[in-house]
């Protein structure tokens, strides 16, 4: 499924009356697009202004010079290198963990008949119904008992495997033709071998979707880091941004620069992998 195709609309290319030289839809879409883009454009503009320009009324719409110096200033004001590293570790580990563990479990539920599998799957699904806030306090206590407070490990551990991922991959694996796996079994391949050599290569779209969903979610996660991270050394990017804003809350040019920096990785992912990004969002609706 790609959103690049345009389906024929009622009587597409058919006769009708046209009063304007352009489609009237532009009158609706152009203002909406403007409203959607203005905050982001403004963010970039402010990030390039001096403190005086940012703190002036009427606001400076077009700054006289481009003060790229805000960026290194923000970078150094708070340990942004740490922020990005921690986020990368957190999101990367969560993504890999999910891909590995959810594949294993998803495959087992999809293809292996084992004792208690139905009960276990229902239990997994049931956990999806419980909002994170219910798990928040006890998870905090568990991570504390593990000694992982204020560490990236503490961020990662609860997010290594999600019931959502198990469910999603199980559903997907079931759609693959079973004959391929049966042929491999007859050839003597082990169950693990079948998963790795046959099923996973065929599951790239689902794996990419799950990977992106998990990576983006972890990158943008705020509540959990807020709870367990206390120092800027171990803070991921979203938490780090609030530290920046807290310490420099009149220097909005700096804060905006920091915000732009925090968005660059996700923006890059979006622009490069637009199809996958959109597909993974649409997927949550198709399930």
């Amino acid at each position: 499924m790609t959103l690049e195709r345009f389906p024929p609309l009622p009587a597409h290319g058919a006769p009708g009356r046209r009063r304007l030289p352009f489609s009237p839809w532009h009158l609706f879409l152009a203002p909406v697009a403007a409203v959607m883009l203005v905050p982001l454009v403004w963010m970039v503009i402010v990030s390039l202004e001096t403190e005086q320009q940012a703190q002036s009324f009427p606001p400076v719409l077009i700054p006289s010079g481009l003060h790229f110096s805000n960026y290194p200033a923000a970078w150094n004001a708070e340990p942004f290198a740490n922020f990005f590293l921690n986020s990368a570790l957190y999101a990367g580990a969560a993504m890999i963990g999910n891909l590995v563990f959810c594949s294993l479990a998803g495959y087992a539920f999809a293809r292996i008949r084992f004792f208690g599998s139905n009960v276990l799957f229902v239990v997994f699904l049931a956990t999806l119904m419980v909002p994170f806030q219910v798990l928040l306090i006890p998870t905090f206590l568990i991570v504390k008992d593990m000694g992982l407070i204020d560490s990236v490990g503490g961020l990662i551990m609860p997010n290594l495997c999600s019931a959502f991922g198990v469910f999603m991959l199980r559903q997907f694996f079931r759609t693959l033709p079973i004959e391929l796996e049966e042929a491999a079994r007859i050839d003597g391949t082990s169950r693990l071998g079948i998963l790795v050599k046959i099923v996973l290569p065929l599951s790239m779209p689902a794996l990419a979707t799950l990977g992106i969903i998990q990576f983006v979610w972890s990158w943008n996660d705020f509540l959990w880091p807020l709870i367990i991270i206390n120092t800027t050394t171990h803070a991921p990017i979203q938490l780090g941004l609030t530290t920046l804003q807290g310490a420099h809350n009149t220097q909005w040019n700096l804060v905006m620069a920091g915000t732009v920096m925090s968005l660059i990785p996700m923006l890059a992912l979006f622009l490069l992998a637009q199809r996958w990004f959109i597909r993974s969002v649409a997927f949550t609706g198709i399930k």
Partner: protein
Amino acid sequence: MSAPATTLPSPRRQRVGAWRRIVTSEHLAGWLFVTPAAILIGVFAIVPIGWSLLLSFQSNNLLAPPHFIGLANYRALLHDPTFRQSIVHTVIYTVLFVPISVFGGLALAVALNRKIRFIRFYRLAVFVSLVTSTVATGFLFLWLLDPTFGLVNYALSLVGLPQQQFLQDPSQALYCIVAMTVWGWLGFDVIIYLAALQGVPADLLEAAEIDGASRFQTFRTIIVPLLGPTTLFLVVWSTINALQLFDEIYVTTRGGPLGSTTVIVYYLYQQAFQFFAAGYGAAIAYVLFVAILVITLIQLWLGRRRVYYTS
């Protein structure tokens, strides 16, 4: 002809054979595959669910040993005016956020589902806000809505309208949060609706055209009903997310001004992690859980009777 004599294997052989059967059996393989996920989900989801319930029956300040107080936390919630206010705020927010983002999403998806010039640009403009994290969105709007230096007040002044306090005005702050989160999430609804719109068979629309339906009638009588399952999903999904609002509140108003944006989850955060009343916080969480469950079930039940599934 007599059948060849058969002898049973020795007892030792039988035991080894049985063990071999178990070891090479599917059951072991299945459990081996599932164990990592089971442990992780067990420790980080199942145990917390139970522990949270237990906590809600305790007085626990995360430092001293907790003691059991039965339903006292829940009874206290019933009489807690701040909690009641947080429910009101959450409901107001949800009742505004869900229809605006879902039906706005539909309207935009219909507009974006055509082949006019710049359509790629328009689509990108709508999707891009999904890239922003909740924190980034909060900052963007905090600055846009700044009473003194914000762009929005500037725009108002150009048109001759009075300046507003926005996030610093107790009567306006919550509505600003609605606007902010709609901006951040609209793209999600649009993507899902766009995918659903493209799943509507083209010949149905042509048949409706020939049957005499105008574009709008086709939309109302054919497209909207066929989008029923999608709409139901988005309403349920948006409601669940709206009831759990937290990040944007923390980043912009911290529940203020004057507690006017304290929503349920924010109140939970305050109680559990600022006042260290963990048991109380757990009780709030459970109340929220039950509320979400009940509301979702009601929505699904209402939807089932109205929504037609083509399959």
